[in-house]
């Protein structure tokens, strides 16, 4: 089976220990995490982990089973790239003198659809949001000028299909009462 990028979305109760449990599932199977992002979700008190891995579909199915087995996981899903809308954000810290002295860098910035977040006499910060290749292409263009700092976030993604977490939660609560 071919390896592919899978975006795993895990809906969880707010619990610090869960991070450890979930990362251990990957670690134990020697699966590298391409990125891992934790945030709140559309539902109050429900957290969402967005994990990107490059594995086979058979592997990702088993991983989902192991993740859902954790007590405080409400539901986990996996999606291929074309089933999600996904973005990453990168910040580039560049010396300010380049901005004023080098016309080429001005063109790079203009063409890149990046935002200038801040400018100080010493440095300016560019923010670029997009897909990995867009961020990488800007990196390649800016790198020859010299980057003071670079950082890129993990992927965040929403799916084209419905997640129905609220329904799942209602189902759980009914069972707990009954």
């Amino acid at each position: 089976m071919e390896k592919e990028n899978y975006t795993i979305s895990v809906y969880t109760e707010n619990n610090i220990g869960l991070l450890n449990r979930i990362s251990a599932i990957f670690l134990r199977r020697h699966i590298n995490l391409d990125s891992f992002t934790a945030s709140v979700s559309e539902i109050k008190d429900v957290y969402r982990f967005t994990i990107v891995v490059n594995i086979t579909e058979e592997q990702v199915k088993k991983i989902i089973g192991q993740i859902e087995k954790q007590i405080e996981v409400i539901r986990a899903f996996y999606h291929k790239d074309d089933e999600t809308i996904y973005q990453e954000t990168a910040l580039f810290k560049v010396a300010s003198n380049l901005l004023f002295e080098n016309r080429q860098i001005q063109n790079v910035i203009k063409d890149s659809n990046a935002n200038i977040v801040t400018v100080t006499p010493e440095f300016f910060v560019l923010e670029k949001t997009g897909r990995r290749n867009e961020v990488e292409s800007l990196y390649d263009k800016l790198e020859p000028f010299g980057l003071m700092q670079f950082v890129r976030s993990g992927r965040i993604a929403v799916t084209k299909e419905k997640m129905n977490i609220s329904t799942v939660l209602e189902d759980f609560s009914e069972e707990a009462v009954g």
Partner: protein
Amino acid sequence: METQVQTQKKETIMSTQRMTGAEAVIRSLLAEGVDLIYGYPGGAIMPVYDELYKFQDQLHHVLTRHEQGATHAAQGYARTSGKVGVAIATSGPGATNFVTGIADAQIDSTPMVCITGQVGSHLLGSDAFQETDIIGISTPITKWNHQVTKAEDIPAVLAKAFYIARSGRPGPVLIDITKDAQFGELDFDYKKCNGVRSYKAIPDTDPRSLEEAAKLINAAKQPMIVFGQGVILGEAEEELKNFIEKSGIPTTWTILGLSALPTAHPLNMGMVGMHGNYGPNKLTNECDLLIAIGMRFDDRVTGNLETYAKQAKVIHFEIDPAEVDKNVKADVAVMGNVKQTLAKILPMVESAKHDSWIQKFKDYDAIEYDKVIKDELYPSKEGLSMGEVMRGINEETNGDAVIVSDVGQHQMMACRYAEFTKTKSNITSGGLGTMGFALPAAIGSKMGAPDREVVAIIGDGGYQMTIQELGTIFQTKAAVKIVVLNNEFLGMVRQWQQLFFDKRYASTEMTNPDFITIAQGYHIPATRVTKREELQGAIKEMIASDGPYFLEVCVEKENNVFPMIPTGASVSDIRLS
């Protein structure tokens, strides 16, 4: 009666009373119906022990001689009683000594609640005396774990712990309680937990899966059942019996499923797996339908997956969705507790007999009997065999005993040759293969089933891993019958060295102490048997004794367990010699 009423009254008044976290721990355990716990005191758990002292008439504490012993005893107790086992220890080394027992309970799905003390919350992360991150350590080996730092959280967390440990596919839960939470005060109000929002204990059964499964069962010409511990944990022994008797399907088991079906049942075909029976393994690769019930296709069961039952359709009755398609792809997965699913499918299956198919099992059994079993049970050689010891125990106990085995050759002999008439009678460390399990587990097994005979079968290696629990037996007078099968070797490793490492016996030969003297040091009656003519009399005397008893049987040093599926080989490549 009058005293009972008074106690109840006292209970209600106390239940709204202000109390310490430590007292709340005890009251929570009592509210869960716990009357017996295993443990070892220490600095960070002292407030709870102080309360145990006050409640000793209601909650009996068994002091094991090592925290690992407490976990295995709690496991044994859980497995013979069907209740949640409870173990308690202090922080740091107390907690880390729990790790092996917790891992064992996790892989063998044993319901257990472990309570550990922890340093005060202001000291967390400061490398304080006896501070260890037991939550971090136990995360991958617990069904759930949680650290409590506030007294008021104790009742709800313990209620959740018991619910999670016992519901669905059971497992171990660890609750770590900081010392300040034990000293802190709360208004005690215990509410039993009957659900956790994000946790579905038992998955829904899709009615279509039952229909599809029934269709496959009714059409099968050569069906075969492999059941596991799910039958015991789900208390589905009767449902299994009804199902196999109506469908007429030959039935085999994993070592953790053993005893759920009486040995003498005409459809019992024996054990699958590495040292299982010849027919069940061979015919796994000839059946047209493999029905897995409450088992998880462990590698010791399947051998090489690439050549495992490839010709067969597979039905998997399972409670844990993560087990479906994990190792063996199921054509039909029937989710749910097997007690319910087997009862539901019963009216859908047609009455059948599979005489000529069953005859194949019998033919293979005849070969195995001739080449392996006969010599094991009735050896012609001078040296004693492990099999004949098991035969002797069967004769004296009529198959009514609980057999607790350790790990290694003697374990395989116990599982192959012990006869059972009752369920929850084979207690062994299956998944983790924990040497040292049997002696403490036997203590718990006896306390979980006080009216039953409990016989521990242990090798000379594993016995010395937890031999200190003789102290627990001496102190509690637990009437455990201990049989050490002494071959002066780590026998199973030696067998592999003989077969696969050209007889290079690296570090497997043991110079053993005088086990009789050691037992006598704990005032446990002890006998050593070296000759065949002494064996049966010694077993008889052991079984007849009222208290604990130690029997050492010096067996042939270099016997091997057969049949055997070499690692990585196919089940159908099972060897008889």
